[in-house]
């Protein structure tokens, strides 16, 4: 693992799908995607729905393979399931039959970490997100925010150098979202992994990221990249008042709005076939 290699590198990546039904039309989800995420960098991917942002994460996790191009993790080509990254999916995907602590320990268990150490590391992170007292609750006994916290620490507990997050705060209410964003920033600063973070929420992207990559409509291409130079640690709760925030927000929103407008224009389907 050389320090010079980027944590994640996309080089001219294309991804095409065809649904299983007989007459299904092929869909080009990603077109000529090239970008890198550097070690310790927090990168957000934003763009209209269906633009292939989540597909990018699946490619890094090795759950799907590119149709053309190269996806690298720590300088090595990703082929097959990539167990060296952490993946926090949109659904919390907690195992319903395991208690909170059992779920948090899961990755360590798969990695053969002995039980006492597992327990210690799990408890430590459960404590950081304030869930002590709920360790033995089952997922259906926890609130949405608690489950989300659990799914985040479950991935962070085994310390990967890259963490993928797919709209982790999507279904939460506005207050819980902001609180969890602040908690995520704290957790991230403890071990500083590279993060690829997919979101629809521009405020969230600005508040958390070092860099924001804007995708176009399907087929997803990279429209623009923005560097977020706001100093860290950031005050997530008052991020709106930070100097420089509104300019960045306006620029991002102008890009996105153009894409949403394009989606409704009649030419949208043109490039698919």
């Amino acid at each position, binding site marked *: 693992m050389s320090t010079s290699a980027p944590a994640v590198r996309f080089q001219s990546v294309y991804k095409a799908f065809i649904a299983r039904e007989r007459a299904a039309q092929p869909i080009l989800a990603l077109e000529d995607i090239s970008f890198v995420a550097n070690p310790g960098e927090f990168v957000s991917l934003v763009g209209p729905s269906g633009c292939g942002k989540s597909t990018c994460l699946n490619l890094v*996790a*090795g*759950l799907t393979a590119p149709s053309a191009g190269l996806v690298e993790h720590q300088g090595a080509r990703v082929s097959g*399931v*990539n*167990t060296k*990254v*952490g*993946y926090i*999916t949109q*659904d919390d*995907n907690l*195992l*319903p*039959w*395991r208690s909170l602590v059992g779920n948090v320990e*899961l*990755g360590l*268990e*798969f*990695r053969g970490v002995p039980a006492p150490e597992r327990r210690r590391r799990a408890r430590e992170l459960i404590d950081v997100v304030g869930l002590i007292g709920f360790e033995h609750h*089952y*997922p*259906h006994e926890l609130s949405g925010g608690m489950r989300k916290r659990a799914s985040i620490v479950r*991935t962070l507990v*085994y310390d990967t150098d890259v963490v993928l997050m797919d709209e982790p705060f999507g279904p939460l209410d506005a207050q819980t979202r902001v609180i969890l964003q602040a908690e995520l920033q704290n957790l991230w600063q403890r071990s500083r992994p590279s993060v690829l973070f997919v979101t629809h929420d521009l405020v969230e992207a600005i508040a958390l990221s070092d860099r924001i990559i804007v995708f176009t409509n399907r087929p997803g291409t990279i429209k623009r990249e923005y560097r977020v130079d706001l100093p860290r640690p950031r005050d997530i709760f008052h991020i709106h008042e930070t100097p420089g925030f509104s300019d960045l927000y306006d620029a991002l929103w102008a890009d996105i709005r153009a894409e949403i407008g394009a989606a409704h224009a009649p030419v949208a389907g043109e490039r698919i076939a």
Partner: protein
Amino acid sequence: MGLGNGARVTAVGERIALPRPPADAAVRVLEDTLTRRQATLRARRRTVWLARLGILVGVIVAWELSSGTLVRTFFVSRPEAVAARLVEWTLNGDLFWHGQFTLTATFIGYMVGALAAILLAWPLGLMPRAYRVAEPYILLAYSIPAVALGPVFILWFGLELLPKIILAAYFVFFVVFINTVAGFRQVPRGLIDVSLVMGASRAALFRTVILPSAVPYVLAALRATLPAAMIGAVVGEFIASNRGLGYLASAAASEYETDGVIAAAFVMAVIVLALTVLLRPLGRVTRWQRGVDVSEGSL
């Protein structure tokens, strides 16, 4: 209903115990609401139970009065004749003697059928392609009405216990099989993907994700099929046998003893009901789960 009531009481109680004590007027409103609600619920429950009891008594009385007047006694017998027959069978030991054969066939058939189904469904549930190959034949076998095979089994295995066991097992097999396969196949893709990325080996994936996810389906099927096993055994006894509860019923029918037929049907119904109630906890054995439905009924 009782549960809903209890929950409401606590809710009101919590309200009263707010940090800031509510004004007297508010307390009165809360208490009034509570007492009124309890009174309505109590009255409603009383009416319902009285109506239920009324129906039961009404049916028995109507049966008694109409027998021999509106309907010939041959068709419906009389309540006291059926009761007398039940007492007679209990006292002379017929009930237990015949019951033991039916129940033995039921339980052995149940275990054989369930075990065979799980052992076959396990590999097929984990190998999607093998399952797709087997699927049309399983559906084919499933659409053979089990009763039509009764004579086949009797011919093959004689008049003793064995054909009844096989019929009982056959009644159990498909429901358990289909639900077990479904249990293995329905594991959410997301759970599997996340576990794989976390580094789960094949064995670990099976142990921690697939098996626990399938167990509720299997248990629900096991719960639903014990009565079916009994029905299988009884069908076997109807078709050909010289003992068992099914024989008791068909023997009475061939003698035109209506009270005996009704009494035997009553006993079977009670046993099936008892088995259903007995296995009800099987559906929810653990704290984490919320129960699974099996789409298959009693025959």
